[in-house]
């Protein structure tokens, strides 16, 4: 019962206030008409609803006061401006013409193009590493990598919500994926923020960014091997922005732990992370950010692809159960003459990860213990040499050492790399006609396997609708 008047107050008042403001003086006759009507309604309700009457009376009082205040305020402002400039009246509170008024901001991303690979996608593997279902090559030929739709808006003064769904082709079928669906606080004091739902983990640098904002078509090998391209899951994130003179955020997350590198039923806490980023400027030309991350998961029957298998292949996977700990650092440095990134900019970026996994794998009803130490990282440089043109180079490398009590099972699972370290060098050139479109050409010399795989990718990324704001 106490909930209803609360709603009426919080939603009706601002609405009426808006109406009042937008119609300023001319509408005041209509408004007093409204108040009169309300009063008449009150009279008829009087006999039956004594309690409600009091509330309404209070409400009307509030409205009358508000009206008086706003008219006074508008009059006062108008006067003060008249004194100074006659031709620049204060703008009336205009309905926002852009991005919808009460509708959420909507934007759609189309990310497609052409892929050529000298290695068949079904011959791909990463010797020595477990691969999640996404950790493979993109299908060859023309295709849409993803079509993504994002809706976001304030829910109320306290919460903000965002939903991102992505459609992509998976062997002649269109797959719908809920990439993100989360609420976050927007009114917590002292730099705190809580996010809940499904979202990309805040670990590392690239992980929390949507893939169409990356500088290369594909994820670094270390992301492919360690995070199944990008780690998202259902859970809660708490972030604290410290009041320091430089940038410093600390965050912690707890997830159900359904997705690689976690895995399982997700009924408890299957994955948890800690991360922190600091950053600042060096003079006017340079800015930087450094980060540290830790991700701990408790995979239970985590599926990994066998070499040559894809996710629809029932016999194409093996399971891992045990513990997984990942430690990471990330660094970004950007330079632009006078800090003006409009014409020229150089970005250097790198991330490195170390992972320890202990547990057992099961492949076709046979088991072996697994004791795994894995490392990986990438470094990249992207240079904007003209306002619309950028070029970049990236080097990837992952390496590790796996041991277990049954080497034949580890060998079948492609976990015995015998000292081989998958690596790759990528070159890209992209053209950005406007803030809403980009065309990219990328060439990979991919040594995921000892045999070279040459990849050529032409990608277009376009954004329809709301103008997005970009992360550093």
């Amino acid at each position, binding site marked *: 019962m106490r909930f209803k008047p609360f709603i009426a107050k919080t939603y009706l008042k601002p609405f009426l206030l808006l109406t009042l403001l937008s119609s300023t003086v001319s509408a005041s006759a209509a408004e007093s008409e409204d108040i009169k009507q309300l009063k008449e309604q009150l009279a008829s309700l009087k006999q039956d609803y004594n309690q409600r009457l009091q509330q309404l009376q209070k409400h009307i009082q509030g409205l009358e006061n508000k009206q008086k205040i706003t008219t006074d305020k508008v009059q006062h*402002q108008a006067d*003060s*401006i008249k004194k*100074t*400039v006659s*031709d*620049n*009246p*204060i*703008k009336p509170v*205009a309905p*926002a*013409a*852009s*991005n919808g008024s009460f509708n959420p901001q909507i934007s759609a991303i189309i990310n497609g193009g052409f892929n050529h690979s000298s290695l068949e996608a079904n011959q791909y593997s990463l010797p020595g590493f477990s691969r999640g279902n996404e950790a493979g090559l993109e299908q060859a030929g023309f295709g849409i990598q993803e079509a993504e739709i994002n809706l976001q808006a304030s829910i109320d003064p306290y919460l903000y919500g965002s939903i991102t769904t992505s459609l992509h082709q998976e062997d002649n079928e269109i797959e719908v994926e809920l990439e993100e669906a989360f609420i976050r606080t*927007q009114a*917590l*004091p002292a*730099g*705190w*923020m809580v996010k809940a739902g499904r979202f990309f983990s805040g670990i590392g640098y690239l992980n929390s960014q949507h893939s169409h904002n990356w500088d290369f078509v594909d994820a670094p090998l270390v992301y492919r091997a360690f995070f199944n391209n990008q780690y998202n899951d259902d859970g809660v994130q708490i*972030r*604290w*922005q*410290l*009041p*320091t*003179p*430089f*940038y*410093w*955020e600390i965050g912690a997350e707890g997830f159900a732990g359904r997705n690689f590198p976690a895995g399982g039923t997700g009924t408890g806490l299957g994955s948890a992370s800690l991360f922190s*980023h*600091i*950053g*600042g*400027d060096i003079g*006017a030309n340079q*800015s*930087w*950010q450094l980060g540290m991350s830790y991700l701990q998961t408790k995979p239970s029957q985590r599926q990994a692809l066998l070499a040559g298998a894809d996710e629809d292949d029932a016999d194409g996977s093996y399971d891992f159960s045990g513990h997984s700990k990942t430690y990471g650092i990330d660094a970004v440095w*950007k330079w632009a003459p*006078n*800090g*003006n*990134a*409009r*014409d020229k900019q150089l970005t250097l970026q790198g991330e490195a990860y170390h992972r320890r996994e202990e547990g057992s794998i099961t492949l076709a009803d046979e088991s072996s213990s697994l004791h795994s130490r894995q490392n990986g990282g990438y470094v990249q440089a992207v240079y904007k040499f003209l*306002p*619309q043109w950028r070029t970049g180079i990236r080097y990837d490398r992952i390496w590790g050492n796996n041991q277990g009590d049954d080497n034949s099972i580890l060998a079948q699972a492609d976990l015995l790399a015998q000292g081989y370290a998958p690596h790759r060098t990528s070159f890209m050139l992209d053209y950005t*006609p*406007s*803030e*809403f479109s980009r065309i990219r050409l990328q060439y990979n010399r991919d040594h995921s396997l000892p045999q070279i795989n040459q990849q050529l990718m032409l990608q277009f990324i376009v954004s329809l609708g709301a*103008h*997005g*704001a*970009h*992360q*550093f």
Partner: protein
Amino acid sequence: MFTRLKFFFSVVMALCFFTQPSFAKVNIFACEPEWGALAQEIGGDKVAVTTATTALQDPHQIQARPSLIAAVRRADLVFCTGAELEIGWLPMILEKASNPAVLPGQNGYLMAADYAKLLEVPTRLDRADGDVHAQGNPHIQLNPHHYLPLANALVERLTQLDNTNAAVYQTRYQQFVKQWQQNIARWENLAKPLHQMAIVVNHDNWSYLNEWLQLKQITTLEPKPGIPPSTAYLERILTLVKQQPAKAIIYASYESPNAAQWLSQKTAIPVLQLPFTVGGNAQANSLAGLFEDTIQQLLAVNHAAQ
């Protein structure tokens, strides 16, 4: 483990206290130098102003840098242009800074464009027209008349945020208004010869100066807002300018001079790099300096052409 945690927290707490020496001052985060300068004029030593961009940076294309997030985290007032000028970076900074006092609708969120009559409000919204701003042209800082209602709004906000110094703000505001009105009268008198002076501009960011001084803008070098000209497009501009001669080709301090210089070589029309905002050149080191230098530069070219 526990002692380590304790140590960690005590370091954090120490940092929090250590890092707030400007506790008593109102922390103002100004997106552009002109608003930073205005905030300093009105606030004096009662405010600490951080300016997010310099005159050498394109305000459309600023990165949501960590340093800016840290500054907004500590800000009491975010003072920007609005009208979607900062749409590519300010929302991201506000999201990351987790500071509810400076979100839209709060006392700590002041957008200059809300206090000006915007020009060039598009009649149709279509990205085929380039990076259009739905609310109108946001580059309002080059009409000095805009500063008066804005200064009034700023005083109101400062009084709300820091009532103990209300009298100081009011006095400084009165002084500012008096001086500014005298300046405007002097500038308008000085700029009389500039009426109907024909100019070519690089980007459509001079509209408010044109409106104020009644300059006649022949064309822009950008085919559409935010889209650099191709050579074919510049050839067309060349033909146009030959038919309708201009006295100056104008570009802002953060823009590339290439297109303007190309046209200048072909037509012998002088190129003018105007300061555009406070700090745009050595003379434009204050709000008054910005207008003084802009008018003087235009007068010099206009005089030479006659």
